[in-house]
Structures are given as C-alpha cells and as structure tokens.
C-alpha cells in the first residue's frame, strides 16, 4: 500500500506499514530528520509537527492517519532563506543549547504566534507544557516568544 503525504508543500509517497509512526516515516523515508523521537510517548514534544495547522506529536500518529493531512515540519517553517519570527527571536535571545527540543519548540511557538495575540508569559508557559527542554531552563525560550509576539 502506498500513502501520499503532503509534507511542507511537497507530495511524497510512502510505502511504510500503516501503523508506522509519522516521525519514523519523515525521518527514515524522507530524510526530514528535524522532528526528533525523544520519548515516543507524546510527552516531550521534540517530534512536534503541524498537522492541518495544529501542533501534534508525530511519534503518536500512525502514518495512515496523516495521509490526508497537510504536514508541516520544522524544516518547512523558515521562509526561504530567512528564519521565521520565532526562530529569529530564539536566535536573538541565545536560547538554543543542545537544540534537540527546538524543532518541537519552534513548531509549538510558531503556532502560538500565528493564532494568538497578547499572550502573557504565563500563557506561553502554559502553551509549552507539551514541550520539554532539558538544557535551557526555558526562560530564554519564553523571552524569545515575548519578543516575537511584541514584534507581530
């Protein structure tokens, strides 16, 4: 069986077993290794992608369910050569450390930025409950989100 997936605007074909987690198909078949399978339990958010515009952990989504959806991964979030506003703010705030959580952070925060206005620090903290970072202690990430929100 062949699935056709729409990933970052491209139509891609997969021959994976229908229950294969989307994250594995993205990484192993399409070599989109941005999404990271860190916990595989839906807790850490490092594998987060946008599915029809909404953030979802790609470790919990069987590829068969993704077949009719628009998938956007972290690789598809920067506009051409430039970073998107949240990526830019995260860079400006020197938020990145090991970087493994950031593909998911960028997905969640890009969504927050495009759907919300006037989010407070507490709102941002709440929005990040599904994204764990082991390195940074979060504050720089929240600073960046505040900065990006202020600029939009």
């Amino acid at each position, binding site marked *: 069986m062949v699935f056709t997936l729409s990933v970052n605007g491209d139509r891609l074909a997969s021959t994976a077993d229908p229950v294969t987690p989307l994250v594995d198909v993205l*990484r*192993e078949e399409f*070599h*989109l*290794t*941005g*999404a*990271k399978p*860190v*916990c*595989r*339990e839906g*807790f*850490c958010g*490092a594998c987060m992608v946008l599915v029809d515009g909404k953030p979802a952990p790609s470790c919990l989504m069987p590829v068969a369910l993704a077949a009719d959806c628009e998938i956007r*991964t*972290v*690789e598809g*979030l*920067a506009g051409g050569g430039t*970073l998107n506003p949240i*990526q830019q703010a*995260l*860079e*400006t705030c*020197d*938020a*990145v*450390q*090991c*970087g*493994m*959580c*950031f*593909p998911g952070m*960028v997905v969640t925060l890009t969504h927050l930025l495009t759907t919300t206005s006037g989010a407070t620090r507490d709102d*941002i*903290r*709440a929005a*990040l*409950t599904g*994204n*764990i*970072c*082991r*390195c*940074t*202690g*979060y*504050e*720089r*990430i*929240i600073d960046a989100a505040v900065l990006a929100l202020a600029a939009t």
Partner: protein
Amino acid sequence: MADVSATMDLRRRDASDKLRGRTRYTIDRYLPGMLHAAVLRASVPAGRIVRLDTARATRMPGVHAVVTAADAPGKIGIGIADHPLFARDVIRYDGEPLAAVAAGTLAQAQAALAAIEVEIAPLPALLTMAEALAPEAPLVHPDWREHEILLEGGARAGNVAWEATVVRGDVDGAFARTDVEIVESTFRVGRQNHVAFEPRAVVADYEDGRFHIETSTQVPWTVRNATARLLGIAPSQVRVTVPPVGGGFGLKFDLAIEPFAALLARASGRPVRLVNSREEEMLTCLFRENAEIRIRSAVTREGEIVGREAVVLMDCGAYGGEQIFLTTMTAHTLGGNYRLGSVRLVSRAVYTNTAPNGAFRCCNGVYNTFALERHTDEIAERIGMDPLAFRRRNVLGDGDLGATGQVFEGDVLGPMLHRMDTLRDAAAPPRALADGRLYGRATTVGTWFVFVGPSAATVNMNADGTATLVTSGVEIGSGSMMQSLPQIVASTLGIPPETVIVRAADTDAAGYDVGVGGGRTTVSLGAASLSAAQEVRTKLLKVASDLIEAAPDDLVMREGRIEIAGAPGSGRTIAEVAARAQAQIGPISGTGAFTGAGVQAMPGCVAGHFIGAIDIPIFAVHDCEVAVDPETGHVEVLAYRVVQDVGRALNPRAIQGQIQGGVVQGLGYALHEEVTIGANGRVCQNGFETYRVPLAQDVVPVEISLYEGAPSIGPLGTKGAGEVPILNVGAAVACAVANATGKRVQELPLTPPRVLELLLDRKQDIALPHIAAAWADNLVRPHNQPDRS
C-alpha cells in the same frame, strides 16, 4: 597578549541550523547500506548464564552478524578494570548486555534477539548498599581480587569497590573537647537520570582495517581507548568523530554502546547504526548515584568547627565506573566550603546488583553539598546562631586549608555572600503568604572545581584571513565550542570570532583530550587554543614585520589587520600577510597543549584519591525562597538567586544561559526527579510518564550575578561555568523547606508525599545502621596503610 578583549556577546553559530531542524546529530545519520543493531539485555539482576545460544538468531531473516562476550575479551574501568562489554558467565544487573545483533532493519534485529536462546540460573541480588555491606552478603564480584588495578592506592574489599580517605588533624581530640557541641546528621538521596534528549547513539564502520566510530559522546578519546581495550586491539586502530551532541550532562562522559556497533561492523562488513531506545536510556542510564551520608561535627558555642567527620556511601551499581574516581570528590565537596580544625572523611563506592551509575553534572557534589548545608543549618540551630552569620564566620578565605590541607587562595566565598546579601535585600522582603502556605528562605554555599587534565589544540591560519581551530572538543550544547573557544582565538589574532572555523572532533586529526565535561572546556581546551593562537600570532607578526618594515613589538593585530601600534589603517590585512607567508615560508599554524598544574595535598592527608587537591576551585552562593502548601506538601519555588564565581566571564550571556538551565535541572533533582529500583532489581521509571523533569510551568527566572576576579590558572582568568550551576540547588531548596516547615529535611527529592510526611511528623529520622558508629570501623583498611589485597 591579545590587543582585543576576549569578552564578547557572540551568538551561537549553530543556532540557525538547530532552529531549522537541519543539524545532523548522530541519531540523524543514515548511511547507505547501513545495518541496524539491537542489544539483548538480561532481565534478572543477578544470575549465572547456563546457556547462551545464538545459532538460531544467526539464521533469522536479514541478520548479518551476532556478537557475544567471546568477541570482546577486555575489561575497562577507572582505577580497576572490572567491566566487560557483555556479561560473561555472571549477570550483575538487570539490563546487562548479553549479545548484539546487526540486521537489515531494526525490526529484524529485534526479532533475532528474541531468537537467542538464554538460560539463566538466578542468584540472590543485592539491591541496596545496606544489603551489600551486610556481614554475610554475597559478593557482586566474587573475583574482585583478580581485577586488574589501573591506579594503585585505593582500598578495596568484597563489595566495597573503592575507598578514599582523608585525615587531617586530631579529630578524636576535637570530639573529646568539653567546650564543644557534637552535631550529627544523616542523609539519603536517590538516583537522577540525565535525560539527555539525544540518546546514546553510534554509527560504526570498519574501513581499511580500522574502525571509524561516529558517536554522541563527550569523550572521543575515551571511546577510542576503551573500545580498543575491550576489543583487544591497538587504540590507533580506532578513529572517533563526533557530530553535534544532543545533550550530555556527564552521561556521555564514558564509553557506552560504541563497541557493540564496532564489533558488528567488523563482523558484517557494513556500517552499523545502534541507538538506545528511550527505555534503554531510562533503565540503564549511568545515573547520578544514590548516596547515604553521615556527618558529625564538633563545634564551639562561638561557632568554630573544631572537628568534622563523615562517611559517604556511593552506590556504583554493578561496576565501579566513574564512582571509583568520584570517591575523590568528597574531600573537596564536603571539605572545601568551611574552615575545619580537623577532619576525617571516607567515601566508599559500593557494588550492588543494579544498573551502573556514572557522572552527572557536579557529580558527588550535589548531594554532599545538600548534606553539608543541611548539617550546617542543624549546627547553627544547635548553638543558637543565625545560619547566615555562621556561614559568614566559617567560609574558607585566603590562606585557609581545605580538607586535604590544600591552601586556598583569595577571599572569594565571603565577598560572594556579601554580594548575595545585596541581591536578596534588593528583592521584595519576605512575606507572610496570604494563601496560608508556609514561607521559607535559605542561602547556601558550595564549592566545586574544574577537572583540568590534558588538552591539545591546533590553529591553522588560512590564506583568506580566517583561522581553523582543530581540537577534540565536542559541542554538547553548552556553547563552549561555539562561543568561548572561537572568542579566545579571535581575540588573540585580532579577527572576528565568526571567522574562526571550529573543526568537529576527530581523534585522527586532533591531539589527546580528556573530554568535554567537568567545566573544563573553556579552561583546558581554551588554554591549549590560546597558546596555539599565540604561536600563529608570533609567526604572522614576524612575516608582517618584514612586509611592513616595523619591529614585531610595534605591531598590533586588530580588526583583521596587522598595523603599526597607534596608526590605525597602516600595515596590511591579516589575509595579505597570511597569503604572503604561505607563499614564502609555507602555511602558518600553531599548536598548543595544556594540563593542570597539579596542586598537592598535605603529605599523609589522603589515601585512594585520584587527585589530592584541586587546581581551580569554583564557588557558588545560592538563595532560594519557597512556599510550602501544608495541605498537599507541594513546594513552589518563589524566587531563586545565584552568585557564581566565574573567574572571568568571556561571554556573560552564554554563562547566564548555563546557570538558568543548571538551576532548573537542580530543581528537578530537589523536588521530583528520582529513579527507584523495584524488588525485581529493575528501574521503576522507564519513560517520561514515570520520570518527571521540570516543565516550563515549574520554573522561575533565576536572578544571576557573575562574580569575577577570583584567582584561576585558566586562560585569561577563566573558570568553567556550565557544571557548577546545579551544585547547590538541592541544598538551597532543602534548607528553605526546612526553614518553612521547621522540620528536619534529610532526603531528596522533596516530593509532595515526602513533605507531607514531614509536616505530619510521620517521617522517621533516617537511620543508617550499615554506617558504623565509630568512624574507623567504616574502613576496609586503616587510613594510609598500603594496599595489601
């Protein structure tokens, strides 16, 4: 010296790719033709292998190679070589590797594991240090006398894998004085999992008769040497390269799964990828060890500490690992904060039938600081002195002796406490909480050190005016490789830091290095890089001096030019000089090497130590405010402040990022992270659902003040800054909770049920009957007697 300051606000060059998901970590590498590997692990904590038959697995679909203990003859370790790659005859922990398979797909490899026939006769398991130290306890290593000794001097016997002692002054005399109060405290802490987001991962290949290992490690040279030792080959047969590492925290400071992949690559003739599953990382992590501690002090009513003794039991799990080395740390983490008239300490690494432990950010320091600071509060309470006044009176200052008789230079902790007073007093005054929660506050001190050790660096000057820095340093996320090292090279050469290319670690290209950890990157690799850059500078200035017709001493290197001092715009660009040099005398490069000065302990003070004293002490003062809910036992951190001794801050923003991250990791340790071992010998927390790390909603912004100017042998006066932030978080939170509740806090983490038990007075005092009442009865060998085992 450099004309340009090395202090910069340089942004990380790796951020943009990391933010786009373009960075290729080891887990992101997929080579053409690559096989996938999986490891068969024991599911009993102790047993004898009766039969291990891989014949059926070898014939399974897709299988290319199966390897077992017969393929890896050597043993590794620190101090003693007690650790084989695969269990041989005896299984010592749940999760111990038995065999490894490489197949076309991971599913095929896992299916083959299931086809390996194993018969195991279970043996009684020792799951706690109390059990392991019981008089008639079976031995985890019945053959402990046969282990090859790599460092002479540690006392060992039975289940005590290693014992390190410190004795300075007349402790018995101090405790016998009639003018002292004797205060005794006991403590217990659990294991902490690093939860590095990138699991341990490796891709190995066997090329032209040599192994090439690409791995997620902090220690490329250790991987090279230890792999060779296990496989029984020359270290030069192994090349290790390291892509960006997705988090380490000390977890990757030791050999991990690399030899399995190497063996399978050789056996199959194909590249082999092996990645630990999250469950493997949770169950067999080299955790921060659980520990049990007793401290006693003899203190005068005026607050002088005339005598102190301590016994520290560190659970090393089934193999000695890094705990053998870490027994050394007790001398410095328990004996480096306060002036002590006399002191004796013993720290013992104890074997149990549990997954081996390892190094984790401020290893040994976090729990010893917790114990010491709680003990300090108990002393202050006993003698009726304000805890902060007691600390001010006793912290080590210029010329004071540490536990091992080392003389400390400079007044550092005292002024840092003063700095903290200013920070704290500028904040809102303590409040009675309107919601009925209990308010508490504490200020604690801590001493850590830079693990110095040898490093090498080469700087190649390129004809286009850029420089390439070649080291065995690894970027694990702390930014040292992206910020401080290029800053040091750039400032020495007067070029923009963005034009210093940092080469990824490759043991074939760069010289020996101890590894990235212990806060040593900026210090050791920094010093080596500085001296390599200085050699380049000297050579360039010589060429330039002919070109510009001025003495080298009259020239400066700044903003990409070599100019006559005081005449901006004169001279030539560095690129012109470099190109001229290349044509005339050949390409310019410089090499640098560095190692610690090696401070000595007072003669006779220490036994079984890997280092007698510390080259670069680092101090920290932490202040914490908490609210404790009397109904639920939930502890909320209201405010957190850090004054950290950084020597000299090359990139203050980068250091502040490390402090925020380290404190939050410490809050997890203090409040909810704990690995426990079930009755079956298996770690109970097998994933993120059962092991809770701090979330964005759990944390507060840390108020930070960087304390500069303390003495340091580090380049440009630097000290390591990334390790220390976690050091006294457990201590500060515990002391604040004790302050809030008026209860005796003896254990971490302070989970709500534990705090509730404290509040309801249902918590029994922690008794450690396996720690003998008389200090000397805790030794397998009297202090300073030679090893006769």
